[in-house]
Each structure stands twice: as structure tokens, then as C-alpha cells.
């Protein structure tokens, strides 16, 4: 199964479970969790079921396209179900079977792994899922998002698409993965991997990035004061990505690091609180529509 078929299969499967299939968000981010379709929508009482692919940037993981396993940008397939359904593990295992993974021929385990995103003020409990010793999925029951108790609880399933594909296609090097017949992952992503790594580690303008961080932070506050949650959150994401670029460049000392993380977290918390207020003003419209029914 090629990379594209994997994405289509997962989309199809989760669409069948009554998830809305949305498209990747257009602002740089480190993980699918940061997409407002997860971060904001998992807050508050409204039911919410969604699935999407998220290209996720981790500047510090860039390796100039030379490392077979590490990437500046990788792909997550993200599923959010709120409230978490009782049969979620079974649904997940069924999705693996759709990808051709028969559990009787493999060793699949749920190994404790608790998730925390300090810049988002979010944490949850759950597992990493092991397929024959390889971590292929992060499985988390959100307990807090933006400092707000998750109620009801959303469950997040994040498939690491490259890892899963390297297993399914039996490839050692991520760049050898087949995206579609005749086109490899490397054909699509090798050049950007190299260029982004070079930019991140050698070229980026540290002074400019510090200035941008401050500007984004200011703009986030400005938007928030007007109760414009989504624009404010876009600038929080920009702050976070700018921080990641600075961090990868080694421009932030250990002591300063905590300070920057706290600044992003404070913004993210305020956005979360404002989002909840605004939804309440709207009367939590999705409650009336009722949650999607699950198999």
C-alpha cells in the first residue's frame, strides 16, 4: 500500500465512523494537536469528531535529508473523538486491519505514554501503540486543554504516517517510501528537507526571528482583546513556530527557554478560555445537533 493509499484508507475509515474529514491547517505547527480543529474544538461540552492529515514541522529534527528516520516535516494522521467512545481501541485496531495489519501476525501493544504539551497547557493519559516494537501511534485521552479540564473527554489518535508506511512497505529509508506508483517520498520531499534544514541551522536571521516573536505575541494579544479567537490563535501558532526555529538555531539559552515557553502557554491559555466564552455566547450550537453515533 503506498503512502497516498494509506491516507485515503484512513480518511475513508474514519469518515465511516462519522468523522468530519477536514484539510490540513495552513499555519506552520509542530503537531496535529495544534490544529484549531483539535486544540480549540476539544475544549467545552460540544461533541466533535474529526480526522485529517497534518504536515508537522519540527525544525530541530531537520537532518538535511540525510537521516533515514528523522525529518524536518513529517505527516500525522489525526483523529479526535469527543466524547471518547467506549469502543475506541477496537475502532483503532480495525483501522489497522484496513491498512493490512492483521493483529494475529503481529505483536500489537498499548504501552503507557503520557502526553504533555507545555506550550499548550495541555496534557493527557494514554499509550503509544507498538507494532512489533515500533511506535506507530500516540493514543491520548485529553485531561486538560489550555489549562481547562476536558469535559467531556476527547480522545486523540495520532498515526505517525512515515513510521507506519516504512513498516507496511518494508523500507529502511523514509525517502524510499512509495508515495504513488513511480513517485517516492524523496521525490516529493527531499529538496524541501535539505533546504529547510540548511535554512534552520545556518541561514535564519535570529534577530529578525526574535522581533517576529514579539510582534506575533503582540498581535495575538490585540486580536484576543477583541475576542477574535481564531485570528489570535493563528498568531499563537506563529509564536510557537518562531520559537522552534530559534530553539533549533541554539539561540535560546536554557534559562530563557522556560520564559519563552511560558509566554506561548499564557497566550494559548487565554485563547482557550476566550474560545469557551465565545462558544457559550453562541449557546454551544453543536450540542443541539447531537454527537455522531458510533458503530
Amino acid at each position, binding site marked *: 500500500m503506498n503512502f497516498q493509499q494509506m491516507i485515503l484508507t484512513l480518511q475513508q475509515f474514519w469518515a465511516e465512523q462519522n468523522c468530519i474529514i477536514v484539510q490540513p491547517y495552513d499555519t506552520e505547527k509542530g503537531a496535529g494537536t495544534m490544529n484549531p480543529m483539535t486544540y480549540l474544538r476539544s475544549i467545552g461540552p460540544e461533541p466533535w469528531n474529526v480526522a485529517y492529515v497534518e504536515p508537522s514541522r519540527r525544525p530541530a529534527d531537520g537532518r538535511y535529508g540525510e537521516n533515514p528516520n528523522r525529518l524536518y516535516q513529517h505527516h500525522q494522521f489525526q483523529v479526535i473523538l469527543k466524547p471518547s467512545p*467506549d469502543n475506541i481501541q477496537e475502532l483503532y485496531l480495525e483501522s489497522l486491519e484496513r491498512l493490512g495489519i492483521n493483529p494475529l501476525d*503481529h505483536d500489537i*501493544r498499548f504501552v503507557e505514554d503520557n502526553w504533555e504539551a507545555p506550550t499548550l497547557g495541555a496534557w493527557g493519559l494514554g499509550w503509544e501503540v507498538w*507494532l512489533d516494537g515500533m511506535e506507530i501511534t500516540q493514543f491520548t*485521552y485529553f485531561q486538560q486543554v489550555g489549562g481547562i479540564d476536558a*469535559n*467531556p473527554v476527547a480522545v486523540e489518535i495520532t498515526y505517525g504516517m512515515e513510521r507506519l508506511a516504512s513498516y507496511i512497505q518494508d523500507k529502511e529509508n523514509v525517502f524510499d517510501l512509495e508515495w504513488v506508483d513511480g513517485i517516492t517520498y524523496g521525490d516529493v520531499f527531499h529538496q524541501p528537507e535539505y533546504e529547510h534544514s540548511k535554512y534552520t541551522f545556518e541561514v535564519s536571521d535570529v534577530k529578525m526571528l526574535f522581533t517576529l516573536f514579539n510582534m506575533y505575541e503582540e498581535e495575538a494579544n490585540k486580536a484576543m482583546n477583541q475576542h477574535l479567537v481564531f485570528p489570535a490563535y493563528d498568531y499563537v501558532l506563529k509564536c510557537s513556530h518562531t520559537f522552534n526555529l530559534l530553539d533549533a538555531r541554539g539561540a535560546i539559552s536554557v534559562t530563557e527557554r522556560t520564559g519563552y515557553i511560558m509566554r506561548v502557554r499564557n497566550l494559548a491559555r487565554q485563547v482557550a478560555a476566550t474560545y469557551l466564552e465565545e462558544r457559550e455566547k453562541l449557546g454551544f450550537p453543536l450540542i443541539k445537533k447531537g454527537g455522531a453515533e458510533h458503530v
Partner: protein
Amino acid sequence: MSRDLLFEIGLEEVPARFLRAAMEQLQDKVVKWLDASRIGHGEVTAYATPRRLAVWVQNVADKQEDISEEVKGPSRKIALDESGQWSKAALGFAKSQGVDPESFTFKELGGVEYIYVTKNSVGVETKSILSEGLHGILTSMTFPKNMRWGAHEFKFVRPIKWMVALLGSDIIDLEITGVKAGNVTRGHRFLGGEAVVISEASAYRDVLREQHVIVDVKERQDMIVAQIENLAQEKGWNIAIKDDLLEEVLFLVETPTVLYGTFDSSFLHIPQEVLITSMREHQRYFPVLDNQGQLLPFFVTVRNGDRRSLDVIARGNEKVLRARLSDAKFFYEEDQKLQIKDALSKLESIVFHEELGTIGDKVRRIRRISDQLSAKFNISADTADSVSRAADICKFDLVTQMVYEFPELQGVMGEDYARKAGEKEDVAKAVFEHYQPRFAGDAVPSTQVGSIVSIADKIDTIVGCFSIGIIPTGSQDPYALRRQAAGIVQIILEHQLPVTLSDVFGIALEVHENIRALKRSTDEIRKDLKEFFGLRVKKLLSEDQRYDVVDAVITAGFDHVVSVVSRGHALMHAVENVEDFKTVVESFNRVSNLAAKAGKAAVNSELFTELEESELYEAWQAIRNDYQAALEAADGERSLSLLSGLKGPITKFFDSVMVMAEDEAVRANRLALLSGIDGDLKRYADFTKLVW
């Protein structure tokens, strides 16, 4: 009549590290509840797998025991009013106990008469209270981390999926988070059935075994160990089964099947600690060694399932390990490109503690303390140079990628990289050894250089923390200061180092004082240090000595650690094995008791009037130089034997000499003699603390 009770909580995979304690907790709560509810029962067995906690109680009585209890009420004086009628207090008591006042009886207790009622309660059927009891047990379970799920408020370790609650074959009514208890369990996630009926509580274990779930923890463990041992024997391998890894793996599987895989032997040029750590920490694999303890390019893992497609699984695991080891190899090669001096400059930006500066600051202090300790130890100039260099570079590996990835390899990597960078052998070795002892039972540094830098690093942390008020209390010891203090004591002891604890404190305090103004006075810090180390020494001695012996020798001082231990051992031996030692101590104690009455005057031999007092004086004088020398040499046995020689003269003295003589000068002189001897005794131990 009795039947078996079964209670199973089916869960989404519970963290392996919580399971054993959770299983014990469930068993404990069930037993406590049965006992408190006066329900008789037989043997209790608890089970746990990643997906379930269960307890099976045999022969649970069908009914609670009947009881008859006497309840005491107010005294007769209060219970009856002036006219002999029941008072309000008595009527209130009757009401509260639900009895008629006519059933009161009087009984005397401690000379006062009280009213009593006898209450008989008839036990109810176990089944009628089990539902409430199990609910209470379930909701009172505690875990290190709890979670919510779905739209439920209830918190538990992981979501509850099903429950089985049976008394014999009867289902107990119980519901939580929408899950109703029944007689239906689930088998192995992939190999077993999704709805498996347990017809009878006692059938639980066997039914689940058929469903590929080994619920008994011991049975599962034995299976894993036996399979590993078979494999080892078949292949001629030595497979190191580390207890904590076995414990974790045990709670990651319901049906264990051991399999092995291989990795490219070109990875074997990486230090084997690195490969082993990567296999254990990341993948939960058991490493494979040959009979010389050399790592072989194989690994052993445990699958949660049967033998089907083991080759596929082995290949998958090999692929993962290849990526892991490639990372390790990359780190190992990259780290060696880093110059030690560049690594050291990076330490300047790592904060050790806000108030105590960076690791760079700490290293400078370690260097100064180490050099001063070297000066005390009469070591060669060459060794002293090595100490200085080792102190300077002891922390450089903290900024390497390998230690960042595997913090537990600090020191191990440093030693390897230092050697490769051309550092002297004793310096490289000390980079590792200065962390020793790393845990209870770990070895102390084997070299002089390692010992000195180790003491310096540890005392720097302890004095630094004490100076800003971080002193361990109760279970609070975030910087593991107790372990580090014990480490210093062990090193001094093991190497018989000629240094006192106050020397060590003094050096470290001075170094800290020279760098920054201390928040607390050095006298205060010194006092706290003395008390803190006193407890460590005491703990160490108590490992093989009686508490009264420990008390006795510690009272005489523990500043010289080697001495106090040697004195303790000799005294312990004497107390337990030397015939008549009790009479020796009795003679000492007579000396001590009277010495307390002495003034300040010195002994004047001219004033002796009796032969026995001159003889005692001379016997004492005769041993003094040797005794002093033996104490200085920390020779507990020799010093105690010298003291014991005084028993004869002391006994004769007390038999013939009247200490409290009428002549004031004579009396004062005799007391002075005893006081002088007592002073020497007390340099060894406070013998009055011994208990017979």
C-alpha cells in the same frame, strides 16, 4: 454454607508499573471489607494482566456472623433522677441504641456503676451487602495517576470496560460509568473470545487460560523465565534477566511468547553499555551475552501472543532496533568530534541550581575542593595532577548527545570519550567513578583519583544545598543528599582515608564562602552537617551492629569515620563473644559514675595513700601512649584491649579504697584519678549506654 467470590475489573491497558501494587491493593481492600463485615472466608488470590485486575476469594460465608455486643451508657448517678426514674440522659441512650430502658443492666467499672445494654444483631446475607461493598472497594481504589474518559466524572487508572462480580454462580448487582457487572469476561485481545462466560467463580483462572490469558502473575513470570532459559540453553547464550525489566514485561503481556532477533555486528564497536541501555530502555529487550559477559548481536523480546508469525515479528523488531542503534552510532560518532574543552564551555550555560550557579560553577568548586583534599592525603604529585584534571573534566559528557538521550549513561560515556580523547587512564576512569556509589549497594570508586573527586562533587552539592536551606526532611530529598552523604562515608571507610568529616566540611564551606556570601552562618551549616552525617554513620553501623553499641561509640565521636567503625566492630565483638566482658564494662561504669562528682583538679600522685590507688594510676599511665596511638590509628581492637586491661586494677581499687575519704584533698585526688580514666574511656565509647 459458603461459595467463592470473584471480582474482575476489565480495563483498557493499565500502565505496567502500576499493576502489581494495584493487584495487592484490590486484594487488601476485599479482605479488609470482608473482615470488617464479619464475613468468614477462605484463601484469597489476586490476579493482574494489562487488561484486568481480579480477586478470587474461596469459601465466602453466605451470611455475616451474628454478634452480641455490650454497649456502655451513662453512670447510674446520671441515669437515674432523684426520684429513681430514668433521666433524660438514660432515655436518650436507650433511643440511640434502639432499645427499651427496661433492658438496661447495671455493672460496675472502676468503682462506678454504669448502665449497659446488650445488642444482638443477626448477620444478613452476604449477597445482600456485596453489591455495596464492591462498589465501595472499586471507588476507593487509588493509583499514582487517574483519568477521566467519555462524559463520566468518575476517575480511574484507565477506562473500565467490563466487570465480573460473582458469588458462586450468582451475579452481584454492580454498576459504574455505565458498565454493569455480569458473568462475562473477555479473553486475549486477539486470540481469545470477546464474550466469555464464567459460570462459577472458581472456574475463572482455567477459563481464561483457555482464552489465552494467564491471569496468575507468578505463572506468567515462570513461563517467561523458563522460555528465556530454554532459549539460552539451546543457543549457549547468557541472557541477563534484569528484575525491573522482567517485572515490566510481565505486565505488558497476557500470553507471553519469547522470541529473539539479531542486529548487525558492526554495531558492537559502540560501548556495550550504550547498546544494552538502548535495547532495554527503548525497546524492553533482554540483551544477550556470551559466557565472558561480552555482548552478542542478538536480543530477546516477549510477544503478547502465541507462536504464529514469530518470524514477521522478529523482523519488525530488528528493523526498529536497527534504526535505534543507527541513532546511537550517530550520537557516538558525533560526540567524539566534540572537543572536551568545547564541551566544558557549554557547561557554563547549564543551570545546576538557580542560587548555586551553572554546572561550570560547580565544576570550579569541585576542582578547588579536590585539590585541597589531595593536599591532605599525602599522594604523589602525579596523582594530584590527575585529580585536578579529573575534577576539571568530570562533567563534560553532560553536553554530549548520548547522555542527553540516555541520562543514565553519564560518566560511562565520559570515561569512554575521555580515554579516546587521550586523557590519562586514571583521569578517564575517575570521570566515571566520581558518580559512584550511584545507588544503594553500588561499588565505591576503586581509585584514589575517583574517590577524591567523588567526595568533592558530593560534598559540594550537600554544602551548597545546606547553605541555601535545602535540607532533607522526611521523604523530601530531591537532590538525593542522603545517598550522597552515605557515599562519602562509604568512600572514606573503604579506602581508610585519613580525613575527618569536619575537615571535609571545612574545605567545602571555605570554597563556597570564597565564591559568594552564604545565606546562613557557617556555624549553623556545620551543625546541620554534623547531625546529618551522624545519622548516616549511625545507619551504616546499624547494618551489622547492635543499636546500643552504635549509640555508645557514636557518643564518643564519629568525626573520624574509620575510627568509629573500628571501635564499633571491636566493641560489638567483645559484647557478644568475650567472656566476662560485662564485668569489664561494670568496672568502667563505676569509674564513670564517680567521675561525674570530680572537680577540675589534676591528679597528684603525691597524695595517694593506698597501694591500690597508686597501682591503678600506674596501670593507667602505662597504657596511655599506646592507647593514644591505637586510637589515632583507628585500631578499635587494640584500644579496647588496652582499656580492658584496667579492669583488674579498677576492681582492686574499688575493693580497697574508700573514694569518698574524709580528707578533702585525698578525696578530690581520688576523684581526679577516676575522672582522668573516665576521660580516656569516653574517647572510645560511652560504656554506660550498653544494655545487658
